[in-house]
């Protein structure tokens, strides 16, 4: 997701998509997603899929398409299963529908900044604020999750490499303890970084 968040900004299509308010894009995505469930015609779905491909190309999202290769592979497998076990037309409708949605969702996430997404969430959460629940930490937490999720993966990998560098045996579950400890260390550091830039400052 994060690698996707940077469609090349100098394309005209990308500029147009970026200019559309995030709320509108997300609402549109939800509506189209729901609407596609009711379309059963393979030709119509094929048309929608082609449109989504053109859109992805227009926002200059070639790296985006590469990131979609694993799900595309899954869809291909699902189609083969339908082909072998039953009705290939049902399979075609299914993969066109999901493929179009994946493309569209990727285009939206590639052309919308994380802060814009969070602003939409902030508006959606507004009713909670009316009953006295603080919603600012929710936005910060989402941001931190997006930032640290890839770092946790990298940390696990680094621990695995450190293990393999000194042991012929497989590490497996033995990495869990150092992983948890180093993650808690990271959390401490993130708290410091938050404090250093005034995230815990009170409004006075």
């Amino acid at each position: 997701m994060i690698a996707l968040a940077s469609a090349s900004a100098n394309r005209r299509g990308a500029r147009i998509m970026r200019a559309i308010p995030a709320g509108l894009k997300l609402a549109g995505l939800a509506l189209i997603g729901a609407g596609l469930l009711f379309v059963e015609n393979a030709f119509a779905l094929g048309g929608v899929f082609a449109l989504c491909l053109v859109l992805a190309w227009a926002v200059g999202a070639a790296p985006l398409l590469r990131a979609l290769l694993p799900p595309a592979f899954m869809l291909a497998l699902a189609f083969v299963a339908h082909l072998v076990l039953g009705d290939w037309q049902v399979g075609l409708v299914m993969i066109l529908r999901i493929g179009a949605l994946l493309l569209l969702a990727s285009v939206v996430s590639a052309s919308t900044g994380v802060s814009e997404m969070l602003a939409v969430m902030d508006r959606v959460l507004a009713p909670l604020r009316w009953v006295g629940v603080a919603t600012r930490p929710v936005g910060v937490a989402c941001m931190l999750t997006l930032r640290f999720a890839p770092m946790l993966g990298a940390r696990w990998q680094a621990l695995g490499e450190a293990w393999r560098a000194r042991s012929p045996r497989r590490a497996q579950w033995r990495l869990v303890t150092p992983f948890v400890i180093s993650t808690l260390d990271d959390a401490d550091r993130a708290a410091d970084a938050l404090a250093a830039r005034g995230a815990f400052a009170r409004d006075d």
Partner: protein
Amino acid sequence: MNQSVTVRLDGVSVSRGGSRVLHDLTLSLAERRIGIIGRNGSGKTTLARVIKGLLTPDHGQVRVAGLDPSARTREAAAAVGFLFQNSDHQILCPNVGEEIAFGPIQAGMDKDAAHAAVTRLLSAQGVADWIDRPVVALSEGQRRLVCLLAVLILEPRVLILDEPFNGLDIPTRRGLMAFLEDLPQQILIISHDVESLHDADRLLWLEAGKIHDDGPPPLVGPRFLKAMDRAADIRAEGAA
């Protein structure tokens, strides 16, 4: 910029796990560029964290521009900027624009104004196109610059840099030094690399939580290096 004393420590002591990390420090820091040197574990980073207010001393008092830096007020938070040793420990947001806008937004600036300020800052550095880049796509030197900009946008009076040149190649290091030279802020640089601090106005040498030496770099620097050589010698003899 106010030329009067901005950082003042009065009898500051900090203990960690039963041992004293800082020992009754009393200091007035007024010079524009101050280097803090010392060996590993001498208390350099602890001193920096106390001045930033990330750590509250067990005894004594810290004042930065007349404020208690550990008070959780916006004014106190904005008084000191802190550059962490490891950029990855400082970056909180997935992309550059958001990372730099984080501080201003926390300080109550609205999102559009913060975005405009970030755009201005990045353009002034000639890197306007970084704004939407994911931080993971930046090099170590670029990340260091993003961290620095994320701190500078808050316009702190004092800037504390914890080993800012670590892990940077020579051109990046020189570029960063030139960039720092032009900043109007009072800057405290922590380092064990005394050569990178020869242009400082004052060097503080910490040893076991106390000020061991204090003066201009041409005086303190050679003494420090000599002491480090001696320490290495003694260890070599002990091992032989």
